[in-house]
């Protein structure tokens, strides 16, 4: 609460001449009354006089602060009056009073004491008192207070930041993250103050983590209290004394918890699982972006692997069953259809998950919604003209949705911090979701049409190319398949290929499919032969990409492409271009629009087709090896 929140120009009267204490009180009450802070000025005056009867509120140094709590006060307010000549307010030191403040307090709350303390801190400074008396207008009077208050707050916050070493830290969290999280944090902080151990409590509420503990604070603390009913990030507390209790214990017995930490009674916590990467403090922007990206990619990976393997199994079943290798390949037998459909459903989540966990990494929980929906809108390709969907913007669109959505929510959170604390509870359940959804929908519908335009112009471009060099066309188609792995480039090439099948040109589809097979294969080969270029996790999921690549499931490459697009995409695209060009050169043909190695039986000139695939994948692998930097371990 700031003093200037309570004091408005209408309640300030300067350079008054007053005959005595009664006149001063009447003048101050009338300021309150005029500005509407009282419901009954007579009742309030009675309270003021009762207080004065207990002893004068003129505290010396020419200052008087009459005050009263009364039900007749509508809302807390402060009135001020200057009387340069001085008025006899029956001060303890007998001196006349020149600065008079009157505090009107409603019955509840101890706001009274805080405002009084703050005002007093400022008034102890003689030059501050003189500048108040010298103020020419109520506005100037307020600006004098405002300036002094700001600089004293600044000193205070600087002082408290120097205290950086809290001896006790706490993290509070509850499943809904609206009330108990904050109640526990407050109870712990108050208990800490009471016991003389200043305490910092991080709240992992549904509005995201606030008052986050820094690595330096954790390092300096004696111990940590976790009062949470849901999981919190624990890796950072490795090696510290730690007690983990229910959130309700944080509310009910904060003193006991703090005493346990201070008595050294708490066990030392050893974190099981991976050690965290470096702390968040002072991370470079590039490093932060990489972290957000990897959060999305690592969450997406299971969907890619499971979905991809299921689709591959579907192809396998159909080829064992001897089903026709046509456009329905992979769904011709009921068992294959089961795997292909379920795998496809897992794939449907892939792009939204990527966007959601990028946004979630940036903006915490409020980011998830914008990421999920933004990613979904990217897979649909929604535009204002066709909200139900048009040309998908694929994983590139999802990267955009994740980052734009995440930073959007971060901005929104900052903006909504300006709202009163009373609204804290409805922010995560109402304000963030609704505003976030509106913003991301508008954003994606604005961006997606450009994807459609790219797609249309690419299709026109391909049609025009059809009559020139076939080999060049093969290169272009191959490259397009692997540029965005499901976005406008990929879709344009794929649709062009299927359209060619229906018009009897089977060589084009062959180049298209081989272009889509190269990226996962190139990556799989690179993880096998150049493992030092990949993280441990990336190496582990490398072999799966052999299956993905051979099954023409380009999506297998997305996690790798998403985590390092500038190096992975050009490598894959070039390898795919080589494969596509060679396929055309050898006059390979394909009549099925998908199926990978399982439809090689119907590929015309399949031996050469296999050779083209091998060469293209090898080119991609070598480029990856050259472009990607060696990882530390």
């Amino acid at each position, binding site marked *: 609460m700031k003093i200037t929140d309570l004091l408005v120009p209408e309640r300030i009267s300067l350079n008054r001449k007053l005959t005595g204490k009664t006149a001063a009180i009447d003048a101050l009450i009338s300021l309150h009354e005029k500005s509407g802070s009282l419901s009954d000025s007579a009742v309030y005056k009675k309270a003021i006089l009762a207080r004065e009867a207990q002893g004068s509120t003129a505290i010396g140094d020419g200052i008087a602060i009459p005050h009263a709590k009364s039900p007749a006060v509508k809302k807390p307010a402060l009135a001020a009056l200057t009387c340069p000549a001085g008025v006899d307010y029956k001060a303890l030191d007998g001196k006349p009073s020149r600065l008079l403040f009157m505090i009107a307090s409603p019955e509840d709350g101890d706001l*009274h*004491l805080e405002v*009084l*303390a703050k005002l007093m801190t400022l008034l102890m400074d003689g030059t501050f008192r003189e500048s108040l008396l010298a103020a020419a207008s109520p506005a100037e009077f307020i600006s004098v207070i405002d300036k002094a208050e700001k600089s004293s707050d600044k000193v205070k916050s600087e002082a408290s930041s120097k205290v950086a070493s809290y001896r006790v830290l706490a993290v509070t969290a509850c499943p809904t993250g609206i009330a108990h999280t904050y109640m526990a944090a407050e109870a712990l902080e108050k208990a800490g103050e009471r016991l003389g151990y200043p305490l910092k409590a991080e709240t992992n509420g549904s509005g995201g983590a606030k008052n986050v503990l820094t690595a330096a604070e954790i390092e300096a603390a004696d111990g940590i209290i976790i009062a949470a009913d849901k999981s919190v990030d624990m890796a950072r507390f490795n090696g510290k004394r730690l007690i983990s209790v229910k959130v309700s214990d944080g509310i009910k017995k904060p003193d006991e918890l703090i005493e346990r930490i201070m008595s050294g009674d708490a066990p030392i916590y050893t974190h099981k699982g991976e050690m965290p990467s470096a702390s968040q403090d002072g991370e470079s922007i590039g490093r932060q972006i990489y972290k957000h990206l990897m959060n999305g990619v690592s969450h997406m990976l299971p969907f890619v692997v499971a979905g991809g393997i299921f689709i591959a199994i579907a192809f396998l079943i159909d080829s064992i069953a001897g089903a026709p290798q046509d456009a329905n390949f992979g769904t011709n037998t009921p068992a294959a259809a089961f795997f292909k459909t379920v795998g496809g459903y897992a794939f449907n989540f892939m792009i939204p998950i990527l966007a959601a966990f990028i946004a979630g990494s940036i903006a915490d929980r409020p980011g998830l919604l914008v990421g999920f929906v933004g990613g979904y809108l990217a897979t649909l390709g929604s535009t204002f003209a066709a909200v139900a969907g048009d040309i998908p913007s694929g994983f590139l669109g999802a990267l955009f949705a994740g980052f734009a959505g995440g930073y959007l929510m971060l901005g929104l959170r900052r903006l909504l911090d300006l709202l009163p604390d009373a609204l804290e509870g409805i922010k995560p359940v109402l304000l963030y979701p609704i505003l976030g959804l509106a913003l991301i929908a508008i954003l994606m519908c604005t961006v997606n049409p450009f994807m459609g335009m790219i797609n249309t112009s690419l299709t026109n471009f391909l049609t025009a190319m059809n009559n020139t060099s076939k080999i060049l066309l093969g290169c272009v188609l191959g490259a397009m398949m692997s540029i965005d792995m499901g976005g406008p480039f990929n879709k344009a090439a794929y649709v062009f290929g299927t359209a060619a099948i229906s018009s009897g040109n089977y060589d084009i589809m062959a180049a298209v499919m081989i272009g889509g097979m190269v990226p996962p294969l190139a990556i799989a080969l690179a993880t096998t032969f150049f493992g030092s270029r990949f993280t441990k996790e990336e190496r582990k999921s490398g072999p799966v990409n052999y299956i993905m690549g051979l099954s023409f499931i380009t999506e297998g490459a997305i996690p790798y492409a998403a985590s390092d697009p500038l190096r992975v995409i050009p490598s894959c695209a070039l390898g795919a271009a080589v494969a596509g060009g060679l396929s055309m050169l050898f006059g390979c043909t394909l009549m099925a629009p998908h199926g990978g190695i399982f439809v090689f039986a119907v590929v015309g000139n399949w031996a050469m087709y296999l050779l083209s695939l091998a060469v293209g994948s090898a080119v991609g692998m070598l480029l990856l090896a050259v472009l990607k930097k060696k990882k530390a371990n």
Partner: protein
Amino acid sequence: MQKRTVKVVNPQGFHMRPAGVFANALAKYECDITLRHNGRDVNAKSLMNLIAACIKCGSEIEIICEGKDDKGIAEEKAALEEACSMIESGLGEV
């Protein structure tokens, strides 16, 4: 030097009236009387200092009485005794 830690028990804390009573009662002693609260030292004989310290109910405060020379030990003890008993008795508000 004499010192002791006490807990503020009156529900409103050190607001103006109890702070005034406290400061006035201690004014008669010659020794310095310091009140340590939240790591800050304030002059216990100054009403403004006391109010500015914003001492709430439940706070633990340390009272330190220090006279000029050894002669004053009796006075230090008396001042400390009076200050502590005032706070513990709720400054007339409990």
